[in-house]
């Protein structure tokens, strides 16, 4: 393994942030382990999406190719908002990040830019969504990508939270949830999503991305058509239809009797560790 060079370390309010370069990639991590990378960009080709999960998240566009308003919870290096703002220059993108240090690091090391169409709220994602409900704000596309050093924070993985997210989705709105649970949590998480949204596309390739449409999942032919329309614009980012489309599965590969995660019962970190 090539030696990594550390560019920046910082003890923020919530975590230790490390930015490092290794094998032509610049990454951010919150722990000492190099395996738990929060975000990575390729130094040679900054547009190229290094992570499979980011490509799968963009699969949400196959369900809703022209979102006007986008909400992204969890900024990381800002890969998702940066990419989406290139693909959809007119879209208004709200991002939410709890840790001000991550916002600074994303700007300094990962080319993230706050622009007239891309803005950041430094607060807890759940509080942001609750305020959005009160204000009556709706989004065509919502991406859930909030992680701490362990996993998704427990209050962002409950049936009540997903119900709140549903309330800020437009009727044809789409939700993309990034999860990479293994073992027992996978079953609980899947059952919880299904309890709120019904059937969903379950994209598994290393990690897992859940895609949901508020007014029901579109047919395979609609998705294929949207994929074709988007192909030229997504190619620069390494997102190709022949790569993504086979991953769109609606099969249930979890225990359907798994206990649903709620605000009363959400030991997600404990379940993930088991």
């Amino acid at each position, binding site marked *: 393994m090539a030696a990594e060079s550390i560019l920046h370390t910082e003890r923020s309010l919530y975590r230790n942030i490390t930015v490092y370069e290794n094998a032509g990639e610049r990454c951010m991590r919150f722990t000492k382990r190099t395996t738990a990378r929060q975000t990575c960009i390729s130094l040679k080709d900054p547009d190229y999406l290094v992570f499979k999960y980011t490509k799968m998240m963009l699969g949400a566009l196959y369900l809703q190719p022209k979102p006007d308003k986008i909400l992204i919870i969890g900024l990381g290096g800002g890969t998702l908002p940066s990419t989406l703002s290139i693909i959809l220059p007119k879209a208004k993108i709200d991002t939410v990040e709890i840790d001000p240090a991550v916002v600074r690091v994303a700007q300094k090391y990962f080319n993230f830019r706050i622009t007239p169409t891309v803005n950041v709220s430094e607060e807890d994602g759940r509080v942001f969504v*609750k305020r959005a409900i009160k204000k009556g704000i709706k989004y065509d596309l919502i991406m859930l990508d909030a992680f701490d050093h362990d996993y998704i924070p*427990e*209050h962002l993985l409950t049936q009540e939270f997903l119900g709140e997210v549903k309330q800020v989705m437009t009727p044809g709105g789409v939700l993309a949830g990034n999860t990479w649970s293994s073992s027992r949590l996978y079953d609980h998480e899947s059952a919880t999503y299904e309890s709120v949204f019904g059937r969903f596309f379950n994209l598994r390739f290393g990690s897992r991305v859940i895609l949901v449409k508020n007014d029901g999942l579109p047919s395979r032919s609609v998705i294929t058509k949207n994929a074709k329309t988007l192909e030229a614009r997504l190619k620069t980012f390494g997102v190709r239809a022949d790569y993504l489309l086979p991953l769109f599965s609606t099969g249930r590969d979890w225990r359907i009797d798994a206990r649903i995660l709620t605000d*009363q019962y959400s030991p997600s970190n404990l379940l993930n560790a088991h």
Partner: protein
Amino acid sequence: MNRPLVFLIAGWSGFFVMAVELLSGRILAPNFGNSIYVWGGIITIFMLALSIGYLIGGRLSTRKPSLKKLSIILMVAAASTTPVVLMGDTVLDRIFTLIQDPRYGSLISATILFFLPTMISGIISPYAVRLLVTESSQSGHFAGLLYFVSTFGSAAGTILTSFYLVLYFELNHIFWTMIGISLLISAFSFFVGQKHVENN
């Protein structure tokens, strides 16, 4: 005086306070998030409530202290926790609407829901010391023992709640069970205290 019962009450009360404190973070999170200041607000309110409870407990202990009265304090602490379960969500929703800043929202919520039960729990330790001490030369010995038991209870309440209880039970079930245990202990020690009075 029935010393084991006094220690049981103090140890259980220590368990109760820390379990409630941990769960209070869970209760506030849906409205105010998991930000560092939410925990800051919770810890502030619990410490403040305990400190005032100690003050009151010390004063109360000078007025004919008894095991019966200590049992009643434990009972009232448990009873004052019930609003958390019964109307917690309503209170939190109202405060979320009224206060925009989640720092003060969580601070006010923690005050309304948790100040009273925690303060009453704080009364128990100094009051218990008074019941244990019969000679002043022994006061330090018993104070030390009581701190040990009550803080050990707190440690147990913290680890059991965060490692195991939340893995199997809903928050409200944990609350009701703990309130129930408090009521059982207080009822039992009340009757023991009553007998003690009758026998004298």
